[in-house]
């Protein structure tokens, strides 16, 4: 009786969340692998679990799947407390990091496995498998064994196998880790299209921020067993909730003596600033610029060709600062003295992160 009431309360409390983790803790012997994780994911979203190696991404995914059990906390799926419900009854499809295809079964039997367990009639199985093979563009491969497939094909078969029993949630552990860079890019786009088309709530693990930013609607950033922040890529980018997120997302460097930069001042003793390449502009001497009165001089130490643009590294008050410059602008050489303008930077306080703007932006009438 009381349990049903609780459930209803839960649904009213947070109607938007389809998958919810509340105060989850997990230990492996003495090792605290997940620390008080609170996660809420809405229906139909494609969410990335992003964090460095060993930060507990796989552990969280496995707990949602029921392959691992939390020491404390609650896992809710579709308004049901699932802590004591076995993984196979949670409506989950799981794509393993190494795919875990059944090596002694051919592609057809792999995809059909989950349906056969459910005692679906062979006729319907055939229909579903054919449909899925078409979806993953692997028609004609049904007789092959996993070892006779390319990495990309294996990945897609694993995807089809997970989808076959029509799960409500799809969990993918580093789905692109085992394929090479080019195929990875293709698969990324493909997967995003697939998941958007199927409208299935999906969580995928990655430690590649580009992948997360490109593919996910929302990103959950983990670090040392903690959930650091949950938000859209834009939110993480412009409003990092913790120093870790500020440094992990984007290509950033830390600056201690930023009070020496022109038009910036340091409020307290012990704060550090984070500077991203997009916060900095580098101009050739004599180039006509809007902030010509506010720039300061620096020497170019390195230039890296990044395909569509150049990364220019300059030495400014003992800091090696990166900036991005279009290849269409006048060329700059190593050793050249250039003008540098810093628009803004993140300042990390003990309890918060603040965005500091170049004070001259207030004085000069400019639009960024």
């Amino acid at each position, binding site marked *: 009786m009381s349990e049903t009431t609780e459930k209803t309360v839960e649904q009213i409390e947070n109607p938007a969340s389809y998958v919810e983790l509340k105060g989850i803790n997990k230990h492996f012997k003495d090792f605290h692998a997940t620390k008080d994780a609170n996660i809420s994911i809405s229906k139909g979203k494609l969410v990335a679990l992003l964090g460095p190696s060993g930060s507990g991404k796989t552990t969280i995914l496995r707990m949602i799947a029921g392959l691992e059990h939390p020491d404390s906390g609650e896992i809710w799926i579709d308004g049901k407390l699932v802590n004591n419900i076995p993984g196979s009854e949670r409506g989950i499809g799981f794509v*393993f990091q190494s795919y875990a295809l059944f090596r002694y079964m051919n592609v057809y039997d792999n995809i059909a496995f989950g349906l056969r*367990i459910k005692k679906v009639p062979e006729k319907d199985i055939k229909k579903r498998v054919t449909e899925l093979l078409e979806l993953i563009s692997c028609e004609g491969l049904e007789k092959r064994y996993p*070892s006779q497939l390319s990495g990309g094909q294996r990945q897609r078969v694993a995807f089809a196998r997970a989808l076959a029993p029509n799960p409500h949630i799809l969990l993918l552990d580093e789905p692109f880790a085992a394929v090479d860079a080019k195929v990875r890019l293709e698969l990324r786009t493909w997967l995003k299209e697939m998941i958007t088309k199927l409208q299935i709530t999906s969580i995928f693990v990655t430690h590649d921020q580009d992948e997360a930013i490109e593919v996910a609607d929302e990103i959950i950033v983990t670090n040392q067993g903690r959930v650091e922040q949950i938000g859209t890529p834009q939110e993480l980018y412009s409003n990092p909730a913790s120093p870790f997120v500020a440094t992990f997302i984007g290509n950033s460097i830390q600056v201690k003596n930023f009070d020496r930069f022109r038009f910036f001042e340091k409020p307290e003793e012990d704060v550090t600033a984070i500077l991203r390449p997009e916060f900095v502009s580098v101009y050739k001497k004599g180039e006509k610029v809007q902030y010509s009165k506010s720039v300061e001089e620096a020497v170019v130490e390195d230039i890296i060709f990044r395909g569509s643009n150049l990364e220019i590294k300059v030495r400014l008050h003992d800091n090696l600062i990166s900036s991005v410059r279009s290849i269409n602008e006048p060329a700059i050489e190593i050793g050249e003295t250039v003008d540098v303008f810093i628009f803004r930077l993140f300042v990390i306080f003990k309890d918060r992160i603040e965005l500091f703007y170049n004070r001259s932006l207030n004085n000069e009438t400019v639009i960024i």
Partner: protein
Amino acid sequence: MDIRKDKGVLKWVLIVICFVFLSVFLLLPLVYIIATAFRAGIQGYIKAVTDEYALKATWLTIRATLWAVGINTFFGISAAWCLTKFAFKGKKLLSTFIDLPVTVSPIIAGLIYVLTFGRQGPLYGFLDSHGIQIIFAVPGIVLATIFVTFPFISRELIPVLTAQGTDEEEAAALMGARTFTIFRKVTFPHIKWALLYGIVLCTARAMGEFGAVSVLSGHLRGKTNTLPLYIELLYQGYDFTGAFAASSILVIMAVIILILRLVIEQKGKKEIDINR
């Protein structure tokens, strides 16, 4: 290339040594067994082989082997499965215990059972009152055979199961497959050839076991004599034709096992190549 040319002589010397060695220590004795077995002519051989006690000993050997292989197959799969797929306390200890029979002398294995189940043993009273006789009876022989052969199957399976990992089983479990289905459909194909190979090794060892069985059997002719014990008995009684004829039965059984082993190795290798 150069290295091979230099070692051309060495290669031939080594090959000759191997052949001479095998001829002297293996082939010659085998030929001698056959020759001696037939010394009294075909009739004598047939008579010796179809001797009532010889047949009984053969039958007992086969029975003990079947029991030991059956039980060890079950035990070996269970042990290998739990050692590779689960984490638990005492795992190291269990793993070490499995190897014990390889390191302990078979005689000692026999004596352990005599002490446990014999008149002075703690279980004797209970067993006796229920009319169960273990030592100097067939159960004792089976026990001894199981003891000396029990690492063979699990030791073949453990490396295969370790290499496979637990991913495939977890994937199957998440799709709702029950443990037995997972074993049958997912795990078993991986271990099939290793298991057969382990069974062959176990069979070969079980058929030839002498030491532990000798302690436990009590040498009751026609009752508790296995083939190796029977051969020993005939030999001690200077019945060379009989001893060697009985030996030839054991040799034929061994050759069958050897051929099986070869076939399994070939087939298994082919299938593994496909699934690399």
